[in-house]
Each structure stands twice: as C-alpha cells, then as structure tokens.
C-alpha cells in the first residue's frame, strides 16, 4: 500500500501518524508541503533516515523544486507525476490528508 503525505511535518502530525500505521515495506511518497520532511538539513531528517531502514521513501520532484529543496536525506528517491502514477500502478493508495 502506497502512503502519501502532503503536510509539512512542522505543521501537522500527518507524517508521524502515517509512520505509526504503515506496514514495513510499504512505500511512502511525500508530496505538496509534505516534502519539507525529506530535507537533509531539517529537524525531521533523522525520522526519515529511520523510516528508510524499513520503507522505501519517495518525494515528488516538482514539489521539491517549487520549495527549493535540493539536498535530500540519503536514500530518498525523487519521482515526477509519471513516477507517482507508476507507484499507483503497483500499489493501492492511502492518502494521509
């Protein structure tokens, strides 16, 4: 099951809640303001590093660019909208609004 997170971790508990319920192995895709979580320099970098030990982590490239996030936690993969579609082909979707 693909989990998407669209809220800034500074402003919402969405990411923490998603991590609490997501199964190991499930991919997690950060979109919209959610992408602030995967900055290498941010306060949530260590949470993302921990998550990466059990789950693949993606971030939506156009949302990263719009927010000028260039340096990501190592291991986070970027995808475009087409890559988002690829993930949806393989997985059912759980959007943590």
């Amino acid at each position, binding site marked *: 099951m693909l989990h998407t997170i669209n809220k800034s971790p500074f402003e919402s508990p969405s990411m923490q809640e998603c991590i*609490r*319920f997501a*199964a190991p192995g*499930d991919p997690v895709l950060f979109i919209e303001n959610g992408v602030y979580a995967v900055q290498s320099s941010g306060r949530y970098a260590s949470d993302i590093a921990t998550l990466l030990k059990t789950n693949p982590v993606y971030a939506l490239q156009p949302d990263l660019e719009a927010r000028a996030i260039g340096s990501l936690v190592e291991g986070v993969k970027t995808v475009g909208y087409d890559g988002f579609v690829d993930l949806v082909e393989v997985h059912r*979707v*759980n959007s943590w609004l």
Partner: protein
Amino acid sequence: MEENIKKIMHVMRRAPHGSIYTYEGLEMILIMAAYEQDLSVAFIGDGVYALKKGQETEGISMKGFAKTFMALDGYDVEKLYVDRTSLDERGLTEEDLLVDVEVLDSAEIGRRMNEQDVVIHH
C-alpha cells in the same frame, strides 16, 4: 477478495465541529453503507474526539452528530476501530466513548488498513 465486494475504510482524523470533515465523512459512510460493501471506520488522532460522550452543540448553533455514529450499527457498519495510542494521548478511555468500538493497537489497525482496497481520510 470476494467478487464485487470491496473493502473500504474511512479514517476519521479530525476533531469535530472545528471543521466539517468528520460530519461530511459520516454522511459519506451512511450512503456507502447501503451498497453492501465491506466497510470499516477507524478513529485516529483527534478523530477519536468525534465519539466523546456528552457533546452539546446548541451553544455553537450546530447540529450534533456524535449520536449518529451509534446508528451505524443499524446500517451493518460494525467495524469501528479506535486507536489506543490516540485515546491515551488525550487522557481518554473506552468509557468516555459514546459507541461500542474495538480499541486496538496502532499496529493492528495498520494491519487492517493494509487489507483495504480503498482508504478514505476525512
């Protein structure tokens, strides 16, 4: 998966009254209940507040809807899951809730969530 029966989970995540999401979510559940799918409702985070006993909404001139969750049983929506961690964090226990629910660990709710065909957050 049985043919034509989908597993659909509604996830209530917000406190009532401050926004309409929980209420309109409940309206959605009531309609979907007529379609004989495999429905469940999970209460996570501030979503657990929707089930709190004793809500009196006259003072804010809104309709109360907490009791409507009690009616779900009559629509054969019997799978109501409440996250134990969310209750604990809010100083609530099962006795504070208006409706019979299963209070489960996050991991167990996560397992049931993972079996769904469709998950809708409200």
